[in-house]
């Protein structure tokens, strides 16, 4: 099945003062999908996004947006895309409506077009009631909605969202997800960065896992999970010196795919849990190896992340939350 390509990124690289922020990235974004760039802070996803929206020039490679080069055709690209920066890219003294009026002029809308589109957008993001209050009185969720309305003002073919739910409460987060899905329904291609695994998992049609400026994995969240192969059994072992012994015993059991030692015990990938689990417990009993905790789950996106980057995205989470 071949799908229309909205964005073509080819061997993209960006170096800042000898630091390679983005290193030889290549991927395609299909028209009409929600595409996520997932990675910890500093992974290079925001740099990639900024190149795509023409704010940064790549040092090597190229990005083509709807057939237009991000550098040579920057002005034409800007006319066809919408951008929602990270939260707070808002003038606290202007009202919500004034933000949209300002952008309407910057996108060169005629006064007639502006006066029909602005009320529509305010309605869409449910900000009609607060439209004439200064943005400094808005809650985090309301600011985010205003951001999205601003991004949608040019009636874009592609919308870029930078960390759309960073720092939002759960309710607002779910509302924003609904809005993003609604955009896909309207035929808008959405490209977003996130460092939330659940967001990438539930919202994105396809994701690129980025770490150290490189793509580590690319595909639909489910494909990536299935690609890991097998469900995961995690054991927490009471006596840590027994871990190696247990690992050696478990390796040769039936229905076992792979065994890795963790600081607290073992992670075991299994083909069929109903065969593997009793065998594992049996082996632990034989070795009188006491188990503190047993966890069994289908592969999750964090397992995908760990498998491809060798670390957990959560290691970076506290940094991401810092103001």
């Amino acid at each position, binding site marked *: 099945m071949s799908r229309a390509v909205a964005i073509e990124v080819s061997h993209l690289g960006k170096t800042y003062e000898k630091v390679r922020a983005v290193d030889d990235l290549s991927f395609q974004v299909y028209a009409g999908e929600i595409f996520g760039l997932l990675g910890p802070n500093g992974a290079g996803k925001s740099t990639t996004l900024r190149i795509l929206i023409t*704010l940064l020039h790549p040092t090597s490679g190229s990005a083509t947006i709807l057939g237009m080069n991000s550098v040579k055709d920057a002005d034409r690209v*800007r006319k066809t*895309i919408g951008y929602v*920066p990270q939260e*707070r*890219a808002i*003038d606290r003294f202007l009202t919500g409506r004034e933000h949209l009026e*300002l952008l309407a*002029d910057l*996108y060169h809308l005629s006064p007639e077009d502006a006066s029909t589109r602005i009320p529509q957008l305010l309605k869409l993001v449910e900000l009609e009631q607060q439209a004439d209050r200064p943005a400094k009185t808005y809650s985090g969720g309301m600011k985010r909605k205003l951001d999205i309305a601003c991004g949608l003002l040019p009636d874009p073919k592609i919308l870029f969202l930078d960390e759309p739910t960073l720092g939002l409460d759960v309710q607002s987060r779910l509302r924003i997800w609904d809005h993003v899905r609604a955009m896909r329904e309207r035929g808008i291609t959405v490209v977003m960065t996130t460092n939330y695994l659940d967001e990438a998992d539930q919202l994105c049609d396809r994701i690129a896992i980025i770490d150290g400026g490189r793509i580590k994995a690319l595909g639909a969240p489910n494909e990536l999970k299935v690609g890991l192969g097998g469900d995961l059994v995690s054991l927490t072992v009471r006596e840590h010196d027994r871990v190696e012994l247990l690992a050696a015993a478990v390796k040769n059991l039936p229905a076992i795919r792979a065994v890795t030692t963790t600081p607290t015990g073992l992670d075991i990938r299994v083909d069929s849990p109903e065969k593997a689990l009793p065998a594992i417990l049996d082996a632990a009993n034989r070795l009188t190896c006491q188990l503190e905790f047993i966890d069994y789950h289908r592969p999750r996106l964090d397992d995908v992340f760990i498998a491809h980057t060798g670390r957990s995205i959560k290691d970076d989470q506290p940094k991401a939350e810092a103001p």
Partner: protein
Amino acid sequence: MKEYWQEIRALTMRWVRRLSREKFSMLFTLVQPMLFWLIFFGNLFQRAADMQVTQASSYISFLTAGVVVMTVLNNGLAGGVDLLFDKENGFLERLMSTPIHRTSVILSRFIFVTTITSLQVLVILGVAWLFGVQPVTGLLGVATILFIGMMFGVGLTAISMAMAFSVKSHGDFFSVLGFLSLPMIFLSSALVPLAAMPGWMGFLAQFNPMTWAIDAVRPLILHGWAEALPHVFMVIGVMVLFDALCLYGGARAFRRAIG
């Protein structure tokens, strides 16, 4: 071209709207130079200042030119602050992601700062008038003062914007600003004529563009066209150079920051 004006008008209106929402800050900005420098300083030094030295009928009338140029200096040097905040909170990025001509952001700021400064200069001249200071060159003289102020202001605003685009944090910006502004005032002919300064200060003050501006504005207020004109022509020449230099630096900083 029509689109360019649409952008510039919208961006300039944004600054006007912001100012109108910050009424307290507006009042403070407007009143501060008059109250602090002109009224307090001018009257305080009335008797301490030697009229033989200042060659003016009163210290306030001597000081008026200084306060006018000081206002231009302070507004100009602070002219980039709002862009700095825009840069820091991502609003600038939002503006830059729209299909606008890159210069309209800058140009709107110049228009706004220049307009506000001109209004403020008029208010200062008005207050000075209440204290008996009447520019002897009349309305045309006032217009010339505004023109000199604008020329000086453009260069200063360019410096301020260049700094706004180059500094790593707004802390740096305000440190440099604080460091620049007072010495610029003391090392100029704003408060004391060059001839009455200690030798080394007078020497340094000659190179201060502020001195050139004041030396043209002051005779326009105190002495008349005959004495003022050579200074006016001189300062216009100096300001063309000054502005060209500042705009070149500003453009480079802008290009580096925006790409």
